[in-house]
């Protein structure tokens, strides 16, 4: 964009109220960029806005009123109540399952990655290079590609349709392992560990009392990615579980939705599907907004890994 254009554009930016006061300063703001980003932001937000608005509607209003407006009456409390009590409270059960999978799966994955990453970065041992090559190679294996092979194995071992079928594959985070290694190399000075040893501290104590606190920012990032991928996991629990009593929220919601749109099934429950979807999203969005800087550090670390 030429300078001349920018100058003209700046006047537009001022008149559209982009919050710029001084003329000299406003020259730097581009309305073209702003409009482009505004369109992308609307594209990102409108579906979420739709979800929030429609979670407040009765089933009748969902079907008959404008999607991006409110319904005739605010049905939010009734929807919440109905979502949590439908079919003797399956939704609450699924929420509990998801929390269990996240706590054990993501918590375990983070602990295992922290232990292994520290062991890898701080100690020298025979076979280290081979182990490293195999695990780093596994980062490149897409999660979805492993689901069917894992199901076939677990079916043989009789593990399908148990919580273990969902938890065991969640326990491994090659990405977390890699992140911990690079963090230990740059953020945990060998001298600190050595001097703790000289003072007579055992290795386990050194890890939990000295190393782990130093690793905290990295641990939070690993945990965050593990929580989100376990909370959002669909393919794995779908293929592993038959019994609704072990479903996580994602699989349960998909089943409710099939009931809502299918023909041969009981009556549609659009309002429950939509409220259930909102309840599923909210915890993740809260975690995400609270820990935003950890997201960004994780993404930039992931992108330098090659």
């Amino acid at each position, binding site marked *: *964009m030429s300078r001349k254009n920018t100058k003209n554009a700046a006047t537009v930016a001022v008149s559209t109220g982009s919050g*710029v006061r001084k003329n000299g300063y406003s020259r*730097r703001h581009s309305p073209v*960029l*702003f409009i*482009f*980003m505004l369109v*992308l*932001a609307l*594209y*990102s937000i409108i*579906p*979420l806005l*739709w979800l929030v608005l429609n979670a407040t509607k009765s089933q009748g209003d*969902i079907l*008959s009123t404008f*999607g991006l407006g409110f319904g005739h009456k605010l049905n939010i409390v009734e929807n919440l109540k109905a979502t949590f009590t439908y079919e003797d409270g399956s939704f609450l059960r699924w929420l509990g399952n998801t929390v269990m999978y996240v706590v054990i799966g993501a918590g375990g994955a983070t602990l295992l990655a922290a232990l*292994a990453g520290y*062991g890898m970065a701080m*100690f020298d*041992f*025979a076979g280290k290079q081979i*182990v490293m090559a195999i*695990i780093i190679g*596994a980062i*490149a*294996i897409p999660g*979805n*590609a*492993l689901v*069917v*092979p894992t199901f*076939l*194995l677990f079916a*043989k071992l009789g593990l399908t349709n148990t919580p273990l079928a969902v938890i065991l594959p969640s*326990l*491994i985070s090659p990405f977390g392992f890699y992140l911990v290694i690079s963090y230990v190399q740059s953020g945990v000075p060998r001298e600190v560990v050595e001097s703790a040893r000289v003072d007579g501290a*055992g*290795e386990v104590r050194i*890890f939990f009392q000295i190393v782990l606190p130093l690793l905290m920012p990295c641990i939070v990032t690993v945990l965050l990615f593990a929580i989100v991928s376990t909370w*959002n996991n*669909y393919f794995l629990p779908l*293929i592993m579980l038959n019994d609704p009593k072990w479903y996580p*929220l994602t699989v349960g*919601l*998909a089943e409710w*939705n099939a009931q809502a*749109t*299918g023909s041969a099934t009981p009556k549609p429950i659009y309002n429950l599907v939509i409220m259930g*979807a909102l309840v*599923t*999203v909210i915890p993740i969005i809260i975690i995400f*907004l609270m820990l935003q800087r950890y*997201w960004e550090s994780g*993404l*930039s670390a*992931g*992108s330098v*890994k*090659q």
Partner: protein
Amino acid sequence: MDANTSVVQSSRKFGKSSRSKNIQKAHKHRRNGLIGWAFITPFLIFFVIAIIMPIIYALYLSVFTDKLIGGRVFTGLSNYVAILTNGLFWDGLWRVIRVFLIQVPIMLGLALLAALAIDSARLVGRSAFRILLFLPYAVPGVVAVLIWEFLYGNQFGLTANINTLFGLSLQPLSKNMILWSIGNIMTWSFTGYNMLILYSGLKTIPTELYEAARLDGASEWQVAWHIKVPAIKGQLLISFMFSIIGTFQLFSEPQLLQTPAPNAISSSYTPNLWAYNLSLNGSQYNLAAALAIIMGLITGVLAFVTQNHGSKNID
């Protein structure tokens, strides 16, 4: 562990001869080795269960066939041949290739423009845009599909509103449009994610690099295209690789959209959906295993080639 420590300490106390030094070193080395293994063993155990064993077992299953009479028979590569000569496989593969050729460039193009925008001092509200665009990534895939499924509905839903308003007859869930409706959900979910990956690269470019160009009279577009974009080749490559994996392993979107669009999405719509459906039927485990391995290989080779080619170009 404690015994070793005391050995090391006592050898430190007595004499400084090279022999005792060597012993000390050897002890320390062995001790370190054991501790190192102790730290990584728990991870390795689950790594073997969750990654190594499934791959080996799938390889094993893929070269056998379970017959009603005669049980499990070794059949070599015949399962692979059966998959590769089945038109359903190529139809599914062609679908994901089309998504890859059209959706991925659109998504990464938008992500790149957005990353350049939030990196530019000329944009108002940069941090707000950064959060808003990334938000869809936090939404579980299942919920993303549910929302879009409602928006796509042409009975009610936004599509119906748009159709009435403009006198159109868009049918996003019809056979002709469904692939692009899936592509749109993927674009919605992952544009912000890729934007942040690319932005993390832009942030690390030293400003001196383009301040000089600006002083020489380069426009913002020239700076962006000739300095910033080449500097984040590594990040572009990572985004591209994630996108290859995402499209070739496409599953959740078509699987979930089968409910509202049963006629538009077959059970073999994408290779992964087919593998899933084959694995639901016990007698077709062997085919499912072969198909999963074929798709794993295709994705892996593509990702590997991209990375190799890309890193050569970066050097």
